[in-house]
Every structure is written in C-alpha cells, then in structure tokens.
C-alpha cells in the first residue's frame, strides 16, 4: 500500500535537484569524461604532442603483469580490510550497546579515530610501528620477532590493512550501534523472557534485524578500501617493499602523478571505475535480495 505523492509543479523538482546535480556534474561527470577522453590518447605531460591511440592504453594496461599483480594485492587488501573492520566494529557495537557503566565514554573513544585524516593516522602508525623508532616496532625486534615492514612485503600489507581498518572501524561502529539501537526493545525483551542466550539473541534476532546496515557497510567498506586508502598507503609504505602494497588506486597515482603517463593512468581510472560500479551493482542485485528490511 503505497501512497503516491504527485507534484503539480513540473519545474520545482528539478530545481530542488539542481544543487546536487551541479555538484555531481562538476566533481564526477566532468572529470570522469575527461578521464575517458584521456584514456584513448598518448600525450606528453605538457600536452604538446597528442596521438589518438584508440584502445592501446587499455591493451597495455590489461596485458601488463604488474597490473594483474596490483589487482591481486587490491583483492587481498579489500577483503581483509572489509572483514576485519566489520567483525571488530560489530563486536564493539554489541558490547557498547549493553547497559554498562561509562558506555558513553567508550562510545566517544571508539569514534575518535574517525576524526583523523588518513595521512595523520598513518604518521601515528609510523611512530608506533617503525622498526627502529616506533615504540611497538622496536619492542617487537627486541623481543626477537623480526619486524621490518620496509623490507617484508607480508608485514607491510598487514600493517596497511590494520591501519586502514583502524580508521574505518569508528565509522562502522557508529552505524552498527545505531542499527542495534533501532531494534525494537519489545522483541529483545520477549526473547530474553523466553530464555534466549546472548549468542542466540544476537544470531536470531539482532543480526537479521540489522542486516540492512550490514549490507550498506559492506558496500561502503569495499569502496573505501578501493579508493580511500591512498593516504595510509602513501604515508606508510609508498606501495613497497617490492610492489607488495601497490593497490590499483596507488598505481593510478604513481603512473599519473609521479610517472606522468597520463593515458595509461586514465585507462586504469576508467577500469577502476567500471570495477567499482560492477561491485556495487552486484551487491544491490544479488545481496540485497537476501537482506531483511523491517
């Protein structure tokens, strides 16, 4: 039973949409179209010589084993970050949702990391985990564990996964907490009267009821891991050692900004745009069908 609201004014809706449309056009459609245009050109940085090369850039990118390597790094990275963030954020939210003393303080403290810019967060992590000057990094080495993320690819990847997740947990925590608090108290109480254990309560009542939140966060986290982790990678590892932390996003930056290879970089942006669009589409198409909206 849906009530439809019909506007009689034909112009007003467009007028109300206009600010958002302008912003989207300026900050998305226009640059995106530029990227698509640039991706079929070979051009020197100054724009003095331009050749139209059809899809050569895409062919070069997709046949480049290093691009495939970055692809793998990105997949491992994104899945790790998403899993790590969501598990911990949910755990924290469930814990903080209970009636405990100082709940407000815990909530506030858990939100702090979100207020930090990624680059600043990364610098903090440097001070903690740098093998020779970081407080934990130094103790790890003193304790006999060989910790050197500048030379150990696995450790470097682990570090940026943890650092990126740490940043994102606060955001997820907030949404999970809001989700949990919107679960009708009557349902919870009824279950408790029936003698449901805490785990059973969570598994059969809370978790299904917050599934829209979970679904939303899944999408947001994947997009975050793909696009928004540049600052952390740039400040912590710079894509190294070797190429062990060069994600697709970081490669776009390196090829475009440092290597000044605009065509190749633009082609990668276009591919990245397609990948993320596809991801979001798949999620809405298939995962959403299984989500329970109350």
């Amino acid at each position, binding site marked *: 039973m849906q009530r439809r609201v019909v506007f009689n004014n034909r112009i007003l809706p467009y007028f109300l949409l206009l600010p958002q449309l302008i912003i989207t056009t300026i900050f998305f459609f226009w640059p995106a179209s530029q990227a698509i245009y640039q991706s079929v050109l070979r051009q020197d*940085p*100054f724009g003095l010589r331009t050749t139209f090369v059809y899809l050569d850039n895409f062919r070069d990118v997709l046949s480049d084993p290093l691009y495939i390597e970055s692809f793998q790094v990105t997949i491992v990275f994104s899945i790790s970050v998403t899993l790590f963030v969501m598990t911990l954020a949910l755990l924290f939210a469930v814990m903080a949702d209970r009636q405990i*003393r100082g709940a407000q*303080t815990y909530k506030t403290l858990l939100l702090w990391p979100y207020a930090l810019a990624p680059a600043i967060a990364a*610098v903090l992590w440097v001070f903690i985990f740098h093998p020779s*000057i970081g407080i934990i990094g130094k103790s790890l080495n003193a304790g006999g564990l060989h910790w050197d993320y500048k030379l150990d690819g696995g450790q470097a990847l682990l570090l940026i996964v943890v650092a990126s997740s740490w940043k994102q947990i606060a955001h997820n925590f907030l949404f999970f907490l809001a989700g949990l608090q919107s679960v009708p108290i009557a349902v919870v109480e009824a279950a408790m009267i029936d003698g449901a254990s805490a785990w059973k309560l969570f598994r059969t009542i809370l978790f299904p009821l917050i599934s829209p939140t979970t679904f939303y966060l899944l999408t947001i986290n994947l997009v975050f891991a793909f696009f928004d982790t540049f600052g952390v990678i740039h400040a912590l590892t710079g894509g190294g050692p070797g190429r062990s932390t060069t994600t697709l996003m970081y490669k776009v930056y*390196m090829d475009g*900004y440092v290597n000044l290879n605009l065509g190749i970089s633009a082609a990668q942006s276009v591919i990245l745009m397609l990948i993320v669009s596809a991801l979001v589409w798949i999620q809405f198409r298939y995962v959403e069908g299984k989500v329970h909206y109350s």
Partner: protein
Amino acid sequence: MKRTILFVLILLAVLFVACAPAPTPAPTAAPPTKAPEPTKPAAPAPTATTPRPTPPPGRITVEFWFGLGKPLGDVLEAVVMDFNKSQTKYYVDPIFKGAYVDTMNAAIAAYRAGKAPHIVQMFEVGTATMMAAKGAIKPVYQLAKETGVNLDSKIYIPAVRGYYSEGENMISMPWNSSTPMMYYNKDAFKKAGLDPEKPPKTWTEVRAAAKKLVDTKATACGLTFEWPTWTQLENFSALHNVPLATKTNGMTGMDAELKFNSDLHIRHLQTLMDMTKEGSFKYGGRDGAATVLFPSGECGIIHASSAARARIKNESKFEWGVTFLPYYDDVKGAPINSIIGGASLWVMNSPGRTADEYKAVAEFFAYISKPEVDARWHQETGYVPITHGGNDKTKADGFYAKNPGADLPYQQLTRTQPTENSMGLRLGNMPQIRIIVYEEWEKAFQGQQTAKQAMDNAVKRGNEVLREFEKTYK
C-alpha cells in the same frame, strides 16, 4: 564514573607515550620524490616570518615556483628578496608549491591552462621530461642571447653544468646541487676499535668496518644509505666509470638503453645482499627514509647527500666525520668524479609573455651566479657551490677551516674531468625507473630473487619505460 575517568587517563597516557619518543620529521612519511634534506638551521631569513610581501607596483614581476621546504626554502626566499632589494625595475616573486613532484605537477597543470610561472625549480631527474618539452620551456642559452644578459656557462663547475646542458648549450639554470658523501660515527668507530681518523676507503674496508661495528655491538647496524639508487647506482656507476645507459647515459639521445646489469653492478648488489645477511648493512627504505638512522646512532656509517650535513650536525649526539664515497679498488681508474642531485631552474613559456619579463628572469639568473651569492647559498644550505667563483669565495671566507670536511663534496665532484659516464644522466621518466630499481632491490634483499635477476629485471622494465617515453615524444 571514576573508572571511566581512569580509563581515559590511561588511554591518554598510552597515546602520549606512543607519540613522544618519535623524532621530529616523520622519517617514512617522506614524499615520493626527492625531498629537501633539512640542513643547517639557516640563519632565519627576515622574509620567512613575515607574510609573503606583495610585489611593489610599477615593477616588472615574474613568478618563481619552488619546491624546497623549510629551512632550505627560507634561504632561497632570502636570496630572492636580496635580489629584489638590489633592483628597481624587476621583481621576483617566490612561491612555494610543495615537494618537487608537486611543484612539477603544478607547473605542468599551469602550462596547460596557459598560466605557467616564469621560473620553476625542477628536480634533476625531471630534466629529460623538461628538455623534451620543447616549446614549453626557453633554454637558458637562448634566454641569454635574446636578452643580452651575460650568462657564461664556463663559470659553472663542469659536473653541474654538464648535467643541464645539451652539448655546449645550457638548457636550465643550475641552482641547488648536492652529491652523496659517506658520513661515519667517530665515537662508534672508537668503541669498535677502528681508527676514527682513518675512515674506510674501499668497499672491502667499508664492509669490514661495518661488520666490526656490529660484531662489537658499537652500533646496531653498520651501513645504510639514503636515496638508494642515487647513491648506489647512479653515483656508483659514475665513480667506477661504467655506463648507466647508452648514449652517454641518455644525454645524447632519447633512444638510450639501460646498461646497469653489468657484472660490476650485479657484484655490488650481491655485496649489499651478503652484508644484509651478515647483518652489517640495513636497507632503510626508499628516498630519504634512511637518513634518520645515522643521527639516531643506529647505523655507524651512512651514504647521504652533502645537503644532509647540517641535519646530521644538529641531530647527532656524537662525534662524526665525513669522507668520500667508497669504491672497488680492483676496478681500473676508480674512483673518478661523482655526479650531482638536487634541482635546477627552468624558464617557462606562456602566452603573452613580454621581453621585459624574460629580461627579469635573466637578471635574476645572473644575480644567483655571482660568487658572493653562490657562496652564501653553499654555506647556508650544504649544497655544493655551483660556480668556481662561489668555491673560491667560500675558501677565502675561511668557511672550510671552521667546518672541516665541508669542502669534500666539491672535491669529489671536481677531482677528475667528467667522462661520458660521469657527466650525469638524462633518462626519460627517471623517477619511475628509480622506483623500479627500488622494487627489484627490495625483492632481492628479501631473498626473493638473485642479484642478477634483480638487475636484469630492473633493466628490462626500465627499458620499457624509456621506450614508452620515446613513443610519447615521437
């Protein structure tokens, strides 16, 4: 509630402890390009504390975009302001644009928008890109010809001039140039039973000294180096008079091919890998990330820029010495002169530029080439003097007597006439090639590939970059 407060306090304490012992500049948060090494606590420039002065009306004003952070940038601004004071007609407006790579991107974007600055400071590895951008830049020799200002290329030291010249013609204006040196911890040397007045000269001696430092626990690590490719590949090749690439290291043609997978290059990487294994060498990361390991006392020996001198002087709590870079003594003729790093100044074209504006640029270039200006630049920053006059003036000032070892970079750069392997290099997309070498070396240091595989891969991938560059400019 009490418990909550206690918890917050503990958390704050932990955060404080976590942040406190860190040294001032974030060592790994270095920008991807060559960041200026903090040097001498340059005499606070009068212009640094006040907001940037606006150009006086009626003067012909040119924009100068630079990429040197504090404190080096302060010295640069002070030099520019002194030029402005000496002038009634022209005015140079210095504008900081971030790290070198940011300055480069800003200049490129500005050129494409028709708003290029008159002068832009560009790191040495961007030289090939700038030279290839015919039309976007005005070569210095042409500037001199057009404006009638005398910019005689002969006054600059050959190792500097050669890097930025095509044949006899100077294309960009030399400015901040440095060269890598070997710094060593004299206290640690004493503790290890090494003679602090007789620093190691050859790689065999360096390795032995580094091993002894570690074995006697005088330092936790023996040797490290900053700017790994600049110190261990580009300068290594020059010192041993072996080519980095064909076509005079790319200076005489865009079709150059990389040659740094020779036996000597492989042997050197093998030495470093062996030293990693025995614990006498520590790879400190890309670009300038390793610099901190020396003043902190962790590594007893470092290969670092001459412009790192003042940082080492300020931050080290021990006696230290400086000497020439080591070499393999069984290589015939080694060592010859080293090569420079740093940046030069480029004149950019833009629609609507007037002859007067070019004249202003030329006058500024003539000013910074004066012996007294060059000497001041050298003494306050740690960059090498770019002119013979600047060096003579510094000597006459008695600067070297007061700062022993400060003259060694100049000596190392000028000890022989540059050969075609030690003139410099000009390879397209050199920053990208440097990153490729980092990647391959890091894999080798992790034990994922042999020295030969690393050098072969780096050459193969680097050549692809060069061919791509060549294709772009065809």
